[in-house]
């Protein structure tokens, strides 16, 4: 038995197969079978480890798992489903040679600043030339259903503007807090403006904001695809990058990245030097909403007379366990009518690259989510993770709704935040 299979197998014994996870699991709801439930998946891992089922039997159920972790919040015996899932993904990864597109994506594309800049540039060029408007009329389909996303991409700032960004910002001296900003890959290319808003909100709150140059991809996509070694490598780079200065907080604005970085210690052996460094690092990782609430340095003066709903990132809810701060910030904005979703904890189906690689299943889940969103009659749907943001934009387009999806930080910027006056 491989090491990863052994690790997963041992954890399956915590599952008493009570089935309490079934009502929480989005794929159990949309795919309507026990095979696509947490309990079913855990049992399959056990069966494979005991040699009763084959590794291939595990493939589809595991790849169709969103990894949203909703099941972990209702599990009465606290099964470490995340670890079982990641180990199972490793087993699958070991059992088949990875294709060229896959190794390019994970080895070169995601960790690379150059590629992320190219993605940003390409999107800008695409939009400037109007190519985004004609993809829908192309006689062929783009790979990975990219055509579905073409016209929901946010407007990109020009490459020149993106290059002009500094590495250090300070407005109030002395600053109230020193923040290391984790920019993320997708956030910093596709959602560059949201990163700008994040920096601006921190500055207006009185913080000093530093963007360490040697930071890299958080490694979430790698860890969730069974590429643990690459995930460890990236974690080490980030830990080192944020050790260069004494930061009060390491701030991110992507629930998926935050969840991964909070779990860095689990990548290293307990008692090792790297484990201790990872603990130091993860203790300071905070979502932007938590930090804005903690510093409490903003007043919002411009009312937003709209109905707003909030679609939380699953990883922020179930892994980082950050639930209240985004709502607390929304409540501070005058005029907002906050209409909560009936099932905010139900995944939107974005789930990393799930909406690309399992497009149809992702759309089934999105349809369930959008029913809930439509009920709220929201003018703006607020999210806290780039994947969820794109997915919500796609959902709004599919439903033909007259609403917008925005990142929380961009919504806060609409309300004209000003530094709270020092008395």
């Amino acid at each position, binding site marked *: 038995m491989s090491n990863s299979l052994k690790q997963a197998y041992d954890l399956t*014994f915590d599952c008493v197969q009570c089935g309490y996870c079934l009502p929480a699991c989005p794929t159990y709801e949309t795919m309507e079978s026990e095979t696509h439930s947490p309990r079913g998946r855990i049992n399959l891992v056990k069966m494979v480890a005991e040699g009763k089922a084959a590794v291939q039997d595990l493939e589809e159920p595991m790849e169709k798992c969103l990894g949203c972790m909703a099941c972990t919040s209702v599990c009465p015996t606290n099964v470490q489903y995340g670890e079982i899932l990641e180990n199972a993904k490793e087993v699958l990864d070991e059992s088949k040679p990875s294709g060229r597109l896959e190794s390019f994506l994970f080895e070169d594309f995601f960790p690379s600043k150059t590629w992320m800049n190219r993605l940003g540039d390409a999107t800008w060029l695409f939009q400037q030339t109007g190519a985004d408007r004609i993809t829908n009329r192309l006689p062929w389909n783009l790979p990975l259903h990219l055509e579905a996303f073409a016209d929901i991409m946010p407007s990109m700032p020009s490459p020149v503007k993106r290059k002009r960004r500094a590495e250090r910002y300070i407005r109030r001296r002395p600053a109230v807090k020193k923040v290391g900003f984790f920019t993320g890959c997708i956030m910093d290319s596709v959602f560059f403006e949201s990163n700008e808003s994040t920096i601006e909100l921190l500055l207006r709150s009185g913080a000093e904001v530093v963007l360490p140059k040697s930071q890299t991809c958080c490694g979430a996509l790698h860890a969730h695809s069974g590429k643990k070694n690459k995930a460890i490598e990236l974690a080490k780079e980030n830990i080192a990058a944020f050790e260069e200065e004494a930061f009060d907080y390491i701030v991110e604005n992507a629930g998926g990245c935050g969840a991964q970085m909070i779990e860095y210690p689990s990548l290293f052996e307990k008692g090792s030097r790297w484990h201790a460094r990872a603990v130091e690092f993860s203790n300071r990782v905070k979502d932007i909403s938590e930090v804005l609430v903690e510093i409490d340095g903003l007043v919002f003066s411009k009312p937003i007379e709209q109905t707003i709903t909030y679609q939380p990132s699953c990883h922020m809810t179930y892994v980082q366990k950050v639930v209240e701060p985004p709502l607390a910030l929304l409540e501070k904005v005058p005029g907002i009518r906050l209409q909560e979703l009936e099932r905010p904890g139900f995944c939107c189906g974005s789930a990393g690259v799930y909406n690309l690689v399992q497009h149809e299943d992702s759309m089934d889940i999105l349809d369930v989510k959008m029913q809930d969103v439509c009920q709220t009659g929201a003018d703006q749907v607020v999210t806290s993770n780039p994947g969820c943001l794109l997915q919500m934009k796609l959902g709004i387009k599919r439903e033909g709704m007259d609403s917008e999806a925005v990142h929380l930080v961009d919504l806060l910027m609409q309300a004209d935040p000003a530094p709270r006056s020092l008395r």
Partner: protein
Amino acid sequence: MNDWLKPLQDGLIEGRVLTKNADLYSYSFDASFGEYLPEAVVQVKNKQEVVHVIRLANQYKVPVYPRGAGTCLSGGPLPVHGGIVLDLSKLPAKIDVSPGDLTVTVSPSVRTQDINIEAEKRGLMYAPDPSSAHVATIGGNLAENSGGPRGLKYGVTKDHVLGLEIVTPEGELIRTGGQTIKNVTGYDLTKLIVGSEGTLAVIVEATLKLMPKPPAVKTMMVSFHKVRTAGEAISRTLTSGVLPSKMEFMDQACVRAVEQFQPIGLPVDAAAIILIELDGPEEALRIEQEKVEAIMEEMGAKEVIIPESDEEAAKLWHARKQVSPAIAKIKPTKVSEDATVPRSKIPDFMDRLQTIKEKYDLEVVAFGHAGDGNLHPNILCDQRDPEEMKRAEKAVEEMFEAAIELGGTLSGEHGIGTMKAPFMEMELGDAGVDMMRRIKRAWDPHNILNPGKIFAEKGQKLVLRNE
């Protein structure tokens, strides 16, 4: 390929047949022990498809195992002889409340808790409240005759069923009972089917009884120096003219496990605690609460705690819910029994459990619905230790013997299934079991419906080990 597979497939329009390995393994288990591979899983979407599957199975003599959400603790849906797992949980959800009649008509696929939620919208309630009500389907509850804490005051599932629509093993769609409280027309087939564990018919619709929702509830927690005093206090309360809606018992091991798992300030030095819930009009509750308090004081209870707010009360009930996960931390494998004794015998049963625990050197804890004698002794062990599991098997057998000797029964609410089948004769005697077998033969001449349950096969023994 099985010769029945093609005609099976052909008769389904909306439903589907699953035969991939991953699917078969995913329907090979429930929340009890053992795993058995079916040859196919059929997910039906309407009653006619159920009729089709059963007729075909009867023709080809293929076993069929009805299944809801698979939360069964006694092996009800396990496909022990291969054949077809009939997944009824994907039937369209139907919850039709008739407030004027105080009834609700439901499809078997709905979750029990959802029935109660719909009833409450009209000031009514569906009383049975098994702790898995938010996951389990009503179909499964009906088949197993599930109970729950409120069983003390309101009875169990069978006490709330007025009528059923069923598919017989020969594929006939018939109705039993009706819509009325009073109904003495012929044999009471409704009560026969409820609790028959899917061996006599497939339930495709049920009409259930609703009751007015009590306007208020009141929680009390009482701790005791001695388990025996706790048992006596329960009897005394129940003969005082007060009928609480719940009386839940936790022994010291459970209390300590919960406090280690999620401390909420339960008295870890008490030998036992009882959580009591009274329900009714606010004014009546005040009087009843005083009465219970006086009884507890008179009995020499260690302490009576009355939570000051609903949140405080909810915390105590949350602690009760935490027993299951908390004791799982002692050891990972939980053998959960539900042997039930006359309520006055609870202290004797507790003594017997202690003896069994020492004799087999096992971790045994007890909690449960003490008000109705339905304790849940749990053995905590490790499935990976075959020697320990063997001792657990013997301990379970002795628990059953103890319960029966004290005038009790093998199962209060989980059902017989595979696990308790070997002990049926111990409780019912040869002639008693034979009468049941005759009923089974009359209904299901080809033995296609859920074979291997309730009735032990020759030489069948309780096995908790993975072989």
